[in-house]
């Protein structure tokens, strides 16, 4: 044995080690590949030996060769062998090699599980460390699942060295095995406050990385991160946290407000540029999320812009680059602040560094206005001429086009100028962007009708000078513009001065050298030109010219008929035959022009991108249904000679067939869709019965004659500068005219004081050179807004969108290695967790049994997880019997209120802050839905809840409305800002509910005053629960009006026979419910109570009492407040969408009884009226025609309520139908009341 070892070591002495290999490669520069292949042979020999030292040496060399690009996956098994060595030295070599070349497809990985587990639990911390490092590079879903529990244990290891690695690797584990996120998260959160800075930093790193992808799930950690931010001195940690806040602020504007101050302090105090820059970045993100110009925020913007200017002016190119980068973010929301630094940015365009020039170009995009567009583009054109590298020049070119075409050519006042710019750009040699220029030319010529004559003239010149463009190289991308030029000249040939000349230019032999698709367009448009020429000469006595044209075509077209390109050949031979036929007719003196022109009659309109996709599926059309039953395989089998078994088989095989076909079906459907999308002749589904509103057609657009101040034909190539000059003159003239007019007016009016010059020309003063109609792109009617296509379904982070706040269920525990994994759970344990729906539970335990699963299943499970999450939400709304519902509800509101409280409280004394932080950390964090509640106004949340079942279309509409309201409210709130802190929107909304506003939609609220005394104010809103036909949810906002602390609040109601307050199990029928929070002075909070009702046809009133303790410094007193809870019939209605045909059917059915109502003196726009009915009485509009609308709603017990609302000057008549007359009567009374109030 000893001899063997010695022998092995002696062998090793003669082996090459890594250094020898490297030296050898360096000495064999000429025949490196050959040398390496002999080395690989040696390595193969070494790997066959038993000695682990020799193997390790070989593997080490392989790692080097891998870096040089050699595939070493054949040695994967040997790498595993070396990994499992007991010696650290070899183990490390093995793990390094594995981390460099193992991946998910490496099959030997599954052999490593136990080895890695052993290393993870090794007493030597470096064994563990090496295993963790290696695993971080090659972890697979299987490894992640099997080792998650071991790694989680390591997160609490005694050595910080292990802890930080274990924390960091958890991110990789989450990615591969999303189910581990929820069980591991509490511990991960704990590590944010680890005593070791390295571990803390690792935890921050992981959470930041997670939160970046799914920020909303991590909003509840904001207080904790805030504390870290204000206490940490580690710049690395600070940078990460500040970056994280940048991702969170868009979700919670109030967080932004809280951040501004500490960030501003950091900006002023830090000397680390990296930290300063990230602070500025996050402040920008905050400002973007707040977006409205609050007075103290303009100072923040100024601070940012000023700091960025310092960065940009710095001699360090890196700072300059980043300054420009951040500036472009400000630009999106606060363009004015950036525009003042135009000088600086234009200066950066001259920088020698290309990265910086590109960044400056990005900024220019947002800085243009009608006024300076020409100037900026002129400057860019100069750069185009100067630029050496084609990439930068191409970038300039695209930027010029981007800048000019942005927001539908908003800034272009003179399209002649733009066309000349495009034509000038065609002179660039070797650009890749010929097609871009071409598409711009086409777009402008098609959509700007007034410019067509000019465009055609320019294009004709281009065609005439085509030889300049094509030059000598075929690959020259610029020849693409000829495609556009030919098409424009052909399509708008009526504007051509000399079509004959252009026709001749298009049929030159040189054209045959152009790419095929361009030739095809040439040929086709030559035919159009031919038609134009014929028409021009029609009626002339001398038919010479027309016949000459025909002859020209007959002479030249054969060249194209011989083309190798099928398209060209086909078109050319068709047209050649046509022309030959026409020539015959001409010789007989038959008038043909009319008919030839008819071939190309009609106008082509631009169609919006994705228009086809946005056509809504007409109601009643089921795209998935079979038109004809598919022929089953059995039938075809039947026809085969083997018909003997046909009698027994068919049933069986048919049913199997349909089952199997599910996938196939989907595939075919996809294929069919694809085919239809690609088939221009496929007749698009026309939107059905819906009334057609006047769609903007081309005919409706007035065509304005242009008053050309420029001669149409510019000799040679056009110079855009000419137009710049002309445009300036025009503006001057216009200005002068205006002044004259003003003067005239003044003189007429005999104005008292004479004002001086009207100051600098403002944006609005500049009118376009001539009235320009931009033809809008066509969209199908009822187009669906679809923005679902920008999400990548394969994003691994999607699976990590997991609700982290709901309590852990047993089934979610990480798999622990046991001898018999089958008996993981007893059914008795199962029964305990009722938050998890039965089927998912089954599934997950089954999964565990299987242990091995493929990727597809994994994905399925993550989907399920989402389902679970959704279900969970539903569960909360649904309130299952087994749980005391108030507890769930109040728990939720309590957690929400913690975050709310933290966010809403303006500068809180440090002690208080710590208290809230720890309490929110302890409470297993906030539910995402309640985070949403924190974000939106309470009444908005209430409003969206019943929306769940609505069609997306309706939802969109509704959301839009809500948005409007929200914005409005925000504005309102900003006025109140100083004395009124965000959360207490209740007061505002109550006022808003009664205050009448003009124009757009007035803000509305359903919260009404419940009771009030000197200590407390209660407002409430009552909503039906759409999932339970006998439950109503009452949301009450409690507002502390006093200077003392209110606690031990108890809410109690005297039940009636019909309506009862839902109390927790075990509580007596007269016990009150504890309000799950306390109220510090001036704070308000919301709690929800559930009532069960039996009959809903009549309104109800319930008497109730709120008792509470008022605590001041010296004493505490018991107080109470009586209130009357008013259940209106409206509160039993749930907004439910209804389609017009279903609505019609419902009315026809005759089950409904009618009633009507007249309102006099209603002085508001019709849409306000409708909005009010929708909002206050939970209706939805089915159809609206002028000042008549049909509306629908449904009660929680399923009664249909239909309204027909008509309005004619101040009188509104409502005809209503419902299957429950007394309910209807009461609802109508309530509607009447609503309108009598305003």
């Amino acid at each position, binding site marked *: 044995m000893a001899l063997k070892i010695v022998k092995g*070591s002696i062998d*090793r*002495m003669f082996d090459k080690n*890594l*250094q020898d290999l*490297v*030296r050898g490669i*360096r000495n064999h520069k000429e025949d490196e590949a050959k040398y390496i292949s002999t080395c690989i042979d040696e390595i193969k020999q070494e790997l066959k030996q038993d000695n682990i*030292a020799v193997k390790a040496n070989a593997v*080490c060399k392989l*790692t080097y060769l891998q*870096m*040089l*690009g050699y*595939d070493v996956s054949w040695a994967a098994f040997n790498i595993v062998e070396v990994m499992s060595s007991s*010696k*650290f*030295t070899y183990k*490390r*070599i093995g793990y*390094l090699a594995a981390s460099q070349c193992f*991946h998910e497809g490496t099959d030997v990985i599954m052999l490593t599980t136990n080895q890695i587990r052993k290393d993870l639990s090794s007493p030597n911390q*470096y064994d563990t*460390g090496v295993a*963790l*490092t290696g695993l*971080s*590079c090659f972890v697979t879903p299987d490894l992640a699942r099997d080792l998650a529990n071991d790694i989680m244990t390591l997160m609490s290891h005694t050595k910080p*060295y292990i802890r930080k*690695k274990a924390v*960091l690797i958890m*991110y*990789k584990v989450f990615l591969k095995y999303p189910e581990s996120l929820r069980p591991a998260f509490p511990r991960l959160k704990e590590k944010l406050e680890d005593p070791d*800075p*390295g571990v803390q*930093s*690792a935890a921050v*790193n992981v959470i*930041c*990385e997670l939160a*970046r992808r799914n920020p909303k799930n991590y909003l509840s950690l904001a207080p904790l991160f805030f504390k870290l931010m204000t206490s940490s001195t*580690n*710049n*690395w940690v600070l*940078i990460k946290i500040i*970056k994280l806040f940048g991702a969170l602020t868009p979700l919670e504007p109030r967080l932004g407000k809280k951040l501004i101050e500490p960030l501003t302090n950091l900006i002023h105090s830090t000397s*680390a*540029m*990296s930290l300063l*820059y990230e602070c500025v970045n996050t402040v920008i993100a905050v400002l973007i999320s707040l977006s409205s110009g609050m007075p103290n925020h303009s100072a923040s913007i100024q601070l940012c812009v000023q700091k960025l200017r310092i960065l940009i002016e710095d001699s*360090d*190119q*890196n700072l300059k*680059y*980043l300054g420009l980068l951040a500036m472009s973010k400000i630009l999106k929301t606060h363009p004015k602040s950036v525009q003042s630094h135009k000088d600086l940015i234009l200066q950066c365009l001259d920088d*020698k*560094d*290309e*990265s*910086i020039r590109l960044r400056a170009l990005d900024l220019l995009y947002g800085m243009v206005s009608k006024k300076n567009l020409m100037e900026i583009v002129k400057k860019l054109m100069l750069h185009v001429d100067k630029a050496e590298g084609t990439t930068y020049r191409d970038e300039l070119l695209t930027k010029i086009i981007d800048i000019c075409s942005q927001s539908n050519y908003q800034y272009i006042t003179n399209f002649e100028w733009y066309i000349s710019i495009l034509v000038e750009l065609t002179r660039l040699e070797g650009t890749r962007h010929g097609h871009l220029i071409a598409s711009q030319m086409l777009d402008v010529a098609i959509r700007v009708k007034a410019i067509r004559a000019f465009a055609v003239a320019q294009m004709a010149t281009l065609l005439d000078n085509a030889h300049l463009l094509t030059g000598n190289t075929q690959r020259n991308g610029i020849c693409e513009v000829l495609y556009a030029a030919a098409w424009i000249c052909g399509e708008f040939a009526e504007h051509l001065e000399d079509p004959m000349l252009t026709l001749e230019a298009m049929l030159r032999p040189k054209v045959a050298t152009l790419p095929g698709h361009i030739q095809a367009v040439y040929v086709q448009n030559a035919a159009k030109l031919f038609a134009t020429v014929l028409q021009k000469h029609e009626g002339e006595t001398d038919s010479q010219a027309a016949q000459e044209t025909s002859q020209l075509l007959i002479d030249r077209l054969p060249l194209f008929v011989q083309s190798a390109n099928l398209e060209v050949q086909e078109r050319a031979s068709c047209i050649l035959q046509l022309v030959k036929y026409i020539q015959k007719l001409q010789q007989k003196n038959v008038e043909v022009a009319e008919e030839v022109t008819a071939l190309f009659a009609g106008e082509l309109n631009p169609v919006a991108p994705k228009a086809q996709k946005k056509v809504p599926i007409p109601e009643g059309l089921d795209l998935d249904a079979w038109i004809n039953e598919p022929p089953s395989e059995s039938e075809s089998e039947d026809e085969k000679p083997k018909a003997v078994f046909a009698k027994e088989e068919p049933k069986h095989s048919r049913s199997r067939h349909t089952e199997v076909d599910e996938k196939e079906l989907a595939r075919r459907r996809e294929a069919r869709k694809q085919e239809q999308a690609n088939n221009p002749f496929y007749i698009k589904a026309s939107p059905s019965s819906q009334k057609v509103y006047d769609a903007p057609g081309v005919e409706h657009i007035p065509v304005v004659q242009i008053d050309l101040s420029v001669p149409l034909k510019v000799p040679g190539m056009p110079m855009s500068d000419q137009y710049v000059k002309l445009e300036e003159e025009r503006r001057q003239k216009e200005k002068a005219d205006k002044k004259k007019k003003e003067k005239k007016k003044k003189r007429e009016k005999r104005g008292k004081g004479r004002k001086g010059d009207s100051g600098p020309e403002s944006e609005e003063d500049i009118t376009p050179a001539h009235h320009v109609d931009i033809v809008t792109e066509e969209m199908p009617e009822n187009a669906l807004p679809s923005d679902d296509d920008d999400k990548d379904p394969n994003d691994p982070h999607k699976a990590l969108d997991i609700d982290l706040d709901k309590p852990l269920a047993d089934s979610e525990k990480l798999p622990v290695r046991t001898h018999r994994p089958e008996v993981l759970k007893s059914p008795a344990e199962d029964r305990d967790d009722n938050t998890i729906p039965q089927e998912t539970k089954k599934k997950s335990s089954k999964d565990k049994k299987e242990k091995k699963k493929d990727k597809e299943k994994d994905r399925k499970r993550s989907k399920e997880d989402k389902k679970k999450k959704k279900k969970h939400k539903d569960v909360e709304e649904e309130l299952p019997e087994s749980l005391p519902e108030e507890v769930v509800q109040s728990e939720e509101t309590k957690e929400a209120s913690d975050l709310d409280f933290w966010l809403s409280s303006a500068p809180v004394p440090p002690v208080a802050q710590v208290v809230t932080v720890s309490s929110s950390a302890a409470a297993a964090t906030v539910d995402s839905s309640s985070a949403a509640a924190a974000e939106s106004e309470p009444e908005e949340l209430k409003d969206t809840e019943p929306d769940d079942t609505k069609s997306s279309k309706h939802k969109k509409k509704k959301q839009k409305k809500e948005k409007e309201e929200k914005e409005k409210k925000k504005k309102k709130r900003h006025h109140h800002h100083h004395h009124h802190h965000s959360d207490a929107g209740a007061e505002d909304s109550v006022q808003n509910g009664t205050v009448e506003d003009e124009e757009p939609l007035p803000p509305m609220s359903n919260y009404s005053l419940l009771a009030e005394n000197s200590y407390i104010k209660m407002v409430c809103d009552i909503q039906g629960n759409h999932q339970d036909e006998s439950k109503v949810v009452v949301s009450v906002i409690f507002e502390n009006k006093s200077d003392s602390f209110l606690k031990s609040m108890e809410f109690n109601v005297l039940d009636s026979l019909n309506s009862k307050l839902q109390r927790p199990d075990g509580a007596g029928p007269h016990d009150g419910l504890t309000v799950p929070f306390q109220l510090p002075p001036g704070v308000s909070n919301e709690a929800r109570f559930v009532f069960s009702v039996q009959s809903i046809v009549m309104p109800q009133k319930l008497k109730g009492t709120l008792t509470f303790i008022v605590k001041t410094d010296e004493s505490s007193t018991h107080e109470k407040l009586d209130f009357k809870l008013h259940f209106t019939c409206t509160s039993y209605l749930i907004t439910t969408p209804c389609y017009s045909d279903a609505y019609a059917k419902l009315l026809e059915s005759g089950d409904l009884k009618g009633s009507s109502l007249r309102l006099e003196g209603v002085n508001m726009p019709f849409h306000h009226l409708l909005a009010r009915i929708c909002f206050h009485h939970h209706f939805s509009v089915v159809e609206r025609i002028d000042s008549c609308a049909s509306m629908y709603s449904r009660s929680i017990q399923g009664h249909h309520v239909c309204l027909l609302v008509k309005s004619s000057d101040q009188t509104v008549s409502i005809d209503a139908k419902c299957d429950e007359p007394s309910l209807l009567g009461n609802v109508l009374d309530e509607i009447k009341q609503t309108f009598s109030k305003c």
Partner: protein
Amino acid sequence: MIKAILIFNNHGKPRLSKFYEHYTEDTEQQIIRETFHLVSKRDENVCNFLEGGLLIGGSDNKLIYRHYATLYFVFCVDSSESELGILDLIQVFVETLDKCFENVCELDLIFHMDKVHNILAEMVMGGMVLETNMSEIITQAEAQSKMEKSEICAFLSLCRPLSFSVPDRTGRRRPGLLELQHAPYRPSRT
């Protein structure tokens, strides 16, 4: 996240490549080549950021590099990393190498790729920054090489010593990578 860390010399010869996502060997070589082409044509005093995001991942990615004497250190990162922070990290990396190899130069990296990997593993793990404190990195790296040495000596006294830095054959003073000092953006790290 850091997507890849590449070190290559002025001629594009790879000295270390660490990819935190899987690519085939051919793709890796192509990425190294293209990165070299992008980086090498840049002047000395232009900014150290490059938006060559086409190579790895989407447009979210950036190349952040530094040039020390004969070597380029390139980090490919996504938008979650602070640009200036990564520049500092490169500086920490090179300074650490300098301490471990005593006046590090390209030859050290050529002959001791495995050691460079081991040092890097103490700084970056699975694409995330693990440690930025130089003394901590050096402590851990040295503790491990000490362990390695003791193992080897106990096992085989015959083994040739694994020196941490190779003696220069020419005997001339080698130009260290750190001679061209970069100004760090981080003034103090506690």
